[in-house]
C-alpha cells in the first residue's frame, strides 16, 4: 500500500504543479495589463460578456490593435479592497489598473502616492478613445485631488429624487423643491398611507447601514442644511487649508442640522430595517413597490427599474431634482466608479491605452444600452437614442441639469477620508437605531476627529 500511496501523492502533487504552471501566461508577445474591479457582467459587458470572462470579438480587436493582453479580475467590494491594499502595501505593482471610488479611494490613494497622475497623459496622447470634452466636467473634477487628476470615471451618479407619480397623484402631491416641502410631502404620504391601512409601503427608502454606505447621502444633507461642506471650520476642504486656518472639526456645530435631518427622516418616514440597509436594500424595496420615494442617490431607483416586474413601478417612476435646504444648497449625492493607474505599474503607457478604451465613448454607450440607466459621464451618451426613448427628453434634460448643478466637492478631500466616511456612516446607523441620542453620537464623532487630527499633526504651530 505504501508504494501506491506514494505514487498517488506524487501524481497528485505533480498534477497540481503542472496545472498551475500551465496557468502561467505563456511568454506574451503582448503586454499584459491587469485590471482589478467589481461589477462583473455589468461593467463592460460588450467586452467581457455578461459573465465577465468572455473574450469578445471587440476585445480581441482592441488587443490586437494595441498589442496588449487585458486580464481582468473581478471581486466584490470588500475582497477588492483587500487585494488592492495588499498590492499597495507590498508595492508589488501587480495590478496596473485599479478601481477607485471618489468617496475615499481617489483621495486616500491619491495622497498616498499610489496612483499615477493622469493630466500629462491627456496632454501627451490627445484624441483616441477618451474625449475629456465630452465628459461632464463635474465627473472629471471629482477625480481630482488638489487639481491633479488621478482616475477616469466610468459610470457616475448625481443627486435626485425618484418618486412614484401614481402615489403622489393619489394624495395630490408634487415633487418638493425645498426641504421644507420635502417634510410636508413625507408627512402627507405617511398619513395618507396609514390612513388607508397600508403598512408595507413606506414614504421614503434611504440607506443607513453602518460604515461608509450612507455617508455620501448624509454628507449631501449636511451640505444642504449648512450651505457649505460643514466638516471643518470655515468649510476647509484640503489638508493645506485645514493646517493654514487650524480648522477644527465641527461635528457638533454646523454639521449637526443636516445630520439630524437625515436621521429624523429615516426614523419617521423610512422602513423599520433602515439602520442596516445598504443600496441593495434600497433598490429592492423600491423595486418591490414598497416605497413612494427613493433619495438622494437616484441611481438606485434606476437600478430598481431594471429589476422590477411591478407594472406601477415601471410606469409611474419619475425623476425630480434634489430639493434645496435651508443653507441654500441642494441635497447632494455624488459618486463616480473610476479606474486609476497604479504608480508601481510597469506598463503605464499600455495601461493608459486600456484605461481610455475602457472609459471611452464606445464603452459608455454600451453601458447605457445594457443597463438603460441615465447615469453616464458623457453628454453624447446621455442624449443617445436608447435613453431618450426610455425616459423621454424631459427627464433626460432634468438629469443633465442635476449633473450641471451638482457640487462634487461637498465633503473634504483629505487622505483620511476613508476613515471619516466609515465613522460618519456608523454614527448615522447608531443614531437611526436609537442606540444613542443624536447629540451623543455627534459628540463622540467630534471627540474622535479632534484627537485624530491632533495626532496627525494638523494643528502644530
Amino acid at each position, binding site marked *: 500500500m*505504501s508504494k501506491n500511496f506514494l505514487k498517488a501523492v506524487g501524481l497528485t502533487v505533480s498534477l497540481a504543479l503542472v*496545472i498551475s504552471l500551465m*496557468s502561467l501566461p505563456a511568454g506574451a508577445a503582448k503586454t499584459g495589463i491587469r485590471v482589478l474591479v467589481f461589477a462583473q457582467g455589468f461593467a463592460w459587458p460588450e467586452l467581457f460578456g455578461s459573465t465577465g470572462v468572455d473574450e469578445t470579438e471587440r476585445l480581441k480587436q482592441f488587443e490586437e490593435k494595441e498589442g496588449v493582453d487585458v*486580464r481582468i479580475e473581478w471581486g466584490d467590494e470588500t*475582497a477588492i479592497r483587500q487585494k488592492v*491594499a495588499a498590492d499597495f502595501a507590498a508595492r508589488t505593482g501587480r495590478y496596473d489598473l485599479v478601481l477607485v471610488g471618489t468617496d475615499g479611494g481617489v483621495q486616500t490613494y491619491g495622497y498616498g502616492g499610489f496612483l499615477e497622475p493622469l493630466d500629462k497623459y491627456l496632454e501627451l496622447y490627445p484624441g483616441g478613445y477618451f474625449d475629456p470634452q465630452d465628459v461632464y466636467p463635474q465627473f472629471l473634477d471629482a477625480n481630482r485631488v488638489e487639481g491633479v487628476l488621478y482616475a477616469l470615471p466610468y459610470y457616475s451618479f448625481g443627486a435626485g429624487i425618484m418618486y412614484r407619480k401614481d402615489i403622489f397623484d393619489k394624495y395630490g402631491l408634487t415633487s418638493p423643491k425645498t426641504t421644507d416641502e420635502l417634510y410636508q410631502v413625507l408627512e402627507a404620504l405617511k398619513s395618507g398611507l396609514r390612513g388607508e391601512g397600508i403598512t408595507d409601503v413606506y414614504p421614503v427608502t434611504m440607506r443607513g447601514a453602518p460604515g461608509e454606505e450612507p455617508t455620501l447621502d448624509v454628507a449631501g444633507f449636511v451640505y444642504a442644511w449648512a450651505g457649505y461642506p460643514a466638516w471643518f471650520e470655515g468649510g476647509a476642504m484640503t489638508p493645506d487649508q485645514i493646517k493654514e486656518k487650524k480648522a477644527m472639526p465641527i461635528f457638533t456645530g454646523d454639521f449637526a442640522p443636516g445630520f439630524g435631518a437625515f436621521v429624523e427622516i429615516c426614523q419617521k418616514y423610512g422602513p423599520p430595517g433602515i439602520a442596516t440597509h445598504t443600496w*441593495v436594500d434600497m433598490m429592492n424595496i423600491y423595486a418591490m413597490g414598497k416605497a413612494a420615494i427613493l433619495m438622494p442617490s437616484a441611481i438606485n431607483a434606476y437600478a430598481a427599474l431594471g429589476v422590477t416586474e411591478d407594472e406601477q413601478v415601471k410606469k409611474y417612476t419619475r425623476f425630480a431634482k434634489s430639493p434645496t435646504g435651508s443653507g441654500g444648497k441642494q441635497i447632494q449625492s455624488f459618486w463616480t466608479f473610476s479606474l486609476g493607474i497604479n504608480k508601481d505599474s510597469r506598463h503605464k503607457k499600455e495601461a493608459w491605452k486600456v484605461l481610455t478604451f475602457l472609459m471611452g465613448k464606445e464603452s459608455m454607450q454600451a453601458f447605457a444600452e445594457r443597463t438603460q440607466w441615465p447615469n453616464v459621464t458623457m453628454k453624447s451618451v446621455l442624449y443617445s437614442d436608447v435613453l431618450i426613448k426610455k425616459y423621454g427628453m424631459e427627464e433626460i434634460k432634468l438629469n443633465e441639469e442635476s449633473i450641471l448643478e451638482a457640487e462634487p466637492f461637498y465633503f473634504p478631500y483629505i487622505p483620511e477620508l476613508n476613515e471619516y466616511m466609515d465613522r460618519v456612516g456608523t454614527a448615522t446607523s447608531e443614531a437611526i437605531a436609537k442606540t444613542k441620542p443624536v447629540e451623543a453620537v455627534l459628540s463622540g464623532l467630534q471627540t474622535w476627529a479632534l484627537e485624530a487630527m491632533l495626532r496627525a499633526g494638523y494643528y502644530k504651530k
Partner: protein
Amino acid sequence: MYGQKYSNLKKLVLYAIVFTYLVFVLFPLIWLVQSSFKSMYQALKIPPALIWRPTFEAYQKALGGGMLRAFLNSAIVSLSNVVLVLVLGVSAGYALANLKTKASQNIGFWILTVRMAPAFGIIVPLYIILRSFRLVDTIFAVMVAHLTINLPLAIWLLKSYFEEIPSELAEAAIVDGATRTQILLYVLVPVAVPMIVAVSALVFLLSWNEFLFAFVLTSEAARTVPVLVASLAGTMRFDWPLMCALSTLALIPAFVLVVYLQRYIVRGLTFGAVK
C-alpha cells in the same frame, strides 16, 4: 446509549428532535434552490409563490462564468489537500499518540495555534511571501494555505483515535519484527479507517468551502468555486438568483460525496481482533 433497544415512544422523541432540526437546516436550502429558478423580482415577492413559471436565466449565467474551471480547481485543491493531509497527518498523529512526554502535549498544542491568527492579520504577509516566490494565482499556493487550516484539525483527530487503539495490536506486530512504518500502514491504518474517512470528508469540505485564502491568492487561473460565487454575484452587482444557482451547482458534488462517504463512517470493525 448505543445498541440499546429503545421503546417506541423514546424513538419517536428522538426522531422528532432530529426532524425539527432538519426543518431548520433544510428550509433555507430549499428556499435557495427554489430562488435559483426565479427572477430577482419573483424571488423577493411576498408571499413567495409556491408555484411559478421557472426560468433558467440564473443557471445560464452561472454556467457561462468559468464555472467548469472553478470546479476543476476546487476539486484539485480539495482532493490534493485530502491526500497531503492524510499523508502528513496520519504519521504525525501516530507519532504524537506515542509521545508520552510533556513534549507531546506542547507540540500538539502549538500545532493547533497555527490556526489561531485572525485572517485580516495574515493576508498581507501571506501575499508578500507568495508574491516573492511568484506563486500567486497558482493552485499550489491555495493548496499550501489550506494545509494550515486542515492539518492541525486532522492531526488532533487522528492522534486521539490512535490513542484509543489498544497497544497490544502494535506490540504484536513488533514481536513479529515489523518496522514502525509497516506497523502504521498495515496494522493501524486499517483499524483507523473510520476516522480516516471522517477526516477526509471534513478536510474535503473545509477546503472546498474556503474563501479568504483562495480569493487573495488567486486571480483567474486558479479560482475556486467560492471565489467565483463572490465575484459573479458580489456586493456591487447583486443577483440573488445567480448566487442561489451557483450554490446549488456547488452543492451537488459535495452532496454526492457525503452520501457516498457517510456509509463508511461506521464503527470500527476490528477491535474484536484483539480478543
